[in-house]
């Protein structure tokens, strides 16, 4: 008796979340939101990892997820520091206004 939700559904959800992350990255104008979109993408990947780990009955997938979360935390630290630096010199967090360097 198999009542659990099929794995494909998790994968589709993961893909959807990932795509939403990408779309968020492309469409949002606030640096913070853009940054959060990346977090969303990473979490979507995590979902996939967990799903596959379940599929393969391999613990490796779950381990991966931990590492990803850890790295995401590190990234968040650095990212926020950079965002603060940006705000200090530019006084804005609007992506579209941070284009001093181009062409």
């Amino acid at each position: 008796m198999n009542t659990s939700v099929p794995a494909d559904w998790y994968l589709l959800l993961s893909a959807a979340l990932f795509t939403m992350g990408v779309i968020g990255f492309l469409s949002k104008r606030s640096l913070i939101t853009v940054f959060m979109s990346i977090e969303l993408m990473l979490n979507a990947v995590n979902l996939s990892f967990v799903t596959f780990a379940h599929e393969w009955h391999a613990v490796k997938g779950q381990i991966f997820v931990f590492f990803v979360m850890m790295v995401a935390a590190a990234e968040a630290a650095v990212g926020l520091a950079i965002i603060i630096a940006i705000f200090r010199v530019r006084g804005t967090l609007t992506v579209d206004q941070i284009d001093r360097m181009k062409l």
Partner: protein
Amino acid sequence: MTPDLFRILPEVVLTLAGVLVMLADSSLPQQADRRPLGWLAALGVTAALGASLWQGSLPSGTAFYGSVQTDAFSTFFHVLICGIVLAAILLSIDALPEGQHHRGEYFALMVFGAVGMCLLTSAVELLVVFIALEISSISTYVLAGYRKDTAKGPESAMKYFLLGSFATAFLLYGIAMIFGATGTTKIPEIAALLPAARSHTLVLLAFALMMVGVLFKVSAAPFHVWTPDVYEGAPTPVVALMSTAPKVAAFALLVRLLYGAFPLLHALWMPLLWIVAVLSMTVGNLAALRQQNAKRMLAYSSIAHAGYLLAALAGSGTEPIAAIAFYTAAYAAMNVGIFGLMSLVAGTSERRSTIADYRGVLAESPLAGGLMLLFLISLIGIPFTGGFFAKFYSFSTAMQGGATWLALIGLLNSGIAAAYYLRFAMAVVQPKNGKTAPEGRWSVATVVAIFAAGGTTLALGIAPGWVLHMASTAAQSFSLLH
């Protein structure tokens, strides 16, 4: 049996050095000169370099449950990366922006970055790959924005950071999918299990997504967009590092993936990378053509060089690996050299930014001007410099694989490239009215770094035999897998 620790000895040495630098930094008084920290870091990297060389004498093998592998290939890239980082540190010692108390962490970040890059070249477990990539990336993100009081510095870091993370997410998703398809994340196992993969579509998707991440790191078109902006905003010594070491590591990773994990997909990735190569060199060269800002121009040129490197992959057998290894070495030497000189000549404040600003350098300082000329000539790819043999091996390999057109496009591209390199060179050599002395000064560290780069560039052009031999040996470590 070799103890596992020996397999990551350079990384360990580097980590220790980094930690030591940080500790020393915090224990030094606020206003103390931080330059000794640079020398400390340099010492650490030198030790790591020695360790890497020593690793070369070990029999090749894996450690930590098959997640790290040292072989001729990893040794080659370890040595190369350590060399680059060493040169970058030496360049930085006397060329850092003012603000003494930041200097310690600057050197530490460079050393930590080196840890990630080195690890990337020996990792055969995708988890380690991911972590190594992040270690190197996060360090460089911070370094890119090191001049945080300027308008461009943080913008540079921000773009690098966000786009880098964005691309890493793709890579990670690809890793997840390949894990889903094969149930493993170890590179040799992936290759072995690929024929029995659950879903071929999943494999293909995984491959494509991983390529996005890696091609971003090597700044191949169309994933190159970050390069010019980031280079422009970052301090020049950092660019010397950033344009070379992470790319070298990323190319090592690319080779690992293509030849280690996906050799079966050869028929797929060869045409794909063919296109990417052509795109990269064409886009890079054309966009550089009208560029006025020297660093941006060289950024575009590095995109083109990525294209030349990728062209080698059209070859057959393990030849392309050797060609790529050689190319990265030559490329690193000349890029470190030119950026080092730009840092020296433009000074800490980076008053010289456009190509026209470099007019008269040769007259002011014949040594700096002459060496700039040498590196530019090498970048053009004139014989008797490393740049020539790099291109030569790359395209010769492609030709051996039958990709005549690729070679033709590539060499015509290098003809276009000559136009902007030469424009730079002309500015350097042409006399200028009114003297302005070079802002940087020839310190011991700078001399060592730049002369090492210059010497390597010439040596690779005149007697490339030994490096090529090492590169071939490095390439051999892949043929053993099949």
